[in-house]
């Protein structure tokens, strides 16, 4: 079973990994601990989860433009996301992905991706492929 979602290419590059999916906007400044990549934004549905090594899927960014630098810093420390998938790209996340060279696609209905699904992202083509669904908990 493979589901292919077509969005808009933002930053080129290939990535494959587990999807970390949120229904809520995310602020990188103040919302993510730059030392650990753990999401610390209050009342966030991913609060306590680590970004490190995941394909980070969320509707869009919000908050300070310093957030772009936080994303850069995470990647330089080797604890950044493997790729970013947004519904609507916003300047903070786009600039962060550009300077950190993280593959990024937007225009994707995040609701179609399950938390823990294995996905492939082709940033240059704007494609997100769900290659393996996480088995539902019984």
């Amino acid at each position, binding site marked *: 079973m493979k589901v292919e979602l077509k969005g808009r290419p*933002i*930053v080129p590059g290939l990535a494959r990994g587990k999807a970390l999916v949120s229904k809520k906007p995310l602020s990188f*400044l103040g919302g993510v601990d*730059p030392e650990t990549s753990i999401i610390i934004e209050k009342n966030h549905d991913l609060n306590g989860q680590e970004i490190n090594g995941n394909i980070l899927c969320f509707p869009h960014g919000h908050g*300070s*433009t*310093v957030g*772009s*630098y*936080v994303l*850069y*810093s*995470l990647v*330089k420390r080797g604890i950044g996301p493997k790729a970013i998938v947004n519904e609507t*790209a916003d*300047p*903070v996340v*786009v*600039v*962060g992905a*550009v*300077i950190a060279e993280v593959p990024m696609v937007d225009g994707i209905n995040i609701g179609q991706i399950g938390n823990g699904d294995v996905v492939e992202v082709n940033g240059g083509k704007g494609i997100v492929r769900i290659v393996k669904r996480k088995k539902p908990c019984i």
Partner: protein
Amino acid sequence: MHLTTEEEHIYDGEEGWAYQTAMRILVKLGDLFGATHLIPIESAHISGVSYKTMGDAAIEFVEALAQAGAKAKVPSTINPAGLDYNRLTEMPVSSKVKEKQAKIISLYRTMGINPILTCTPYYIKKPAQGVHVAWAESSTVIYANSILDAWTNREGGPSALAAALIGKTPDYGMHRPENRKANIAVKVETELENEAQYGALGAYLGKTLKDKIPAFEGLAHPREEDLKQLGAALASTGMTSIFYPCQSCPKSVKRLETVRVGRDELKESMESLSTTDEQPDMVYIGCPHCSFSEVKRVAETIEGRKVKNDVKLWVCTSRYVKERAEFDVATIEAAGGKVVSDTCAVVTWLKKLGVDTLMTNSAKTAYYAPTMNKVKVRFGSLRECIDAACTR
């Protein structure tokens, strides 16, 4: 976006990593928001300077650019830092923090950016009318568009820095005349008495108008500082980057949907900007940084009076204004107040200064300080602020 051959070369990395990265930021943002090409800018103003706000994360990227030899192509300035460099010994932070803050400033300086450390660079050099600029800092942006007629988008720290290094910005948003037109009329049906009420009006409208562009009717003879407060508040609670304080509005405005603001709305907004009515332990004037005439007003209000022993009075401005307003500065400091430059109450370590309750005449500060600085806030006019600070 269409790029010239020279721009293509930079985009492809022929001028090195730093300029390539700057160009990629501009092109990506341009693509995202429908720009067709890059346009030259007269100046850039960059946010992302205070170590308190930025933390370590931002230093790494700015350092990488500086080390790669990137230089600003146009006159560029930066926002306030976390410390007053004339009062470094009074600043309650470790030497490690002071080093980090100094490093950020020196990185910008290395890139040929003027470490002016103020959010009101326009009091030092006004841009020419009708020029394009790339300014960050929402209060500076709305002032540029509305009061100075210098055209800028609401840039963030990284995009303003990228524009500084390339000397250009993508031509979307506020750089296009059709996006600068008023699309809502605001009829102010009560008389505004002081700058705090102008700020309260802005704070109320930012929440209700979001990113709509208001043209005001009924503002009777506002002073420049009144409009500065109105704009700073409007841009804090909302996403507006421009407003029109028209004395006599053009016909086109009269046909727009109209929002009315009366005494009740203003009173409610004034009240909502205070979280306490307690005695403040700091009184803060200077968000955005004071003009000459504001420093003078503080001096005239405080002359011959004395600041209470347990209250700090901070009057924040640029070093430029402070150095040239020496008589007013002397009057304020003789009364026990401090004229502080290079920083402001919001971007410094307020809690470490022992501040729990802050009183201010700035609606922008009143809006941000409870969350950014974790302090209680009392909001009032400049006169009310000075009265609260002084013994009589």
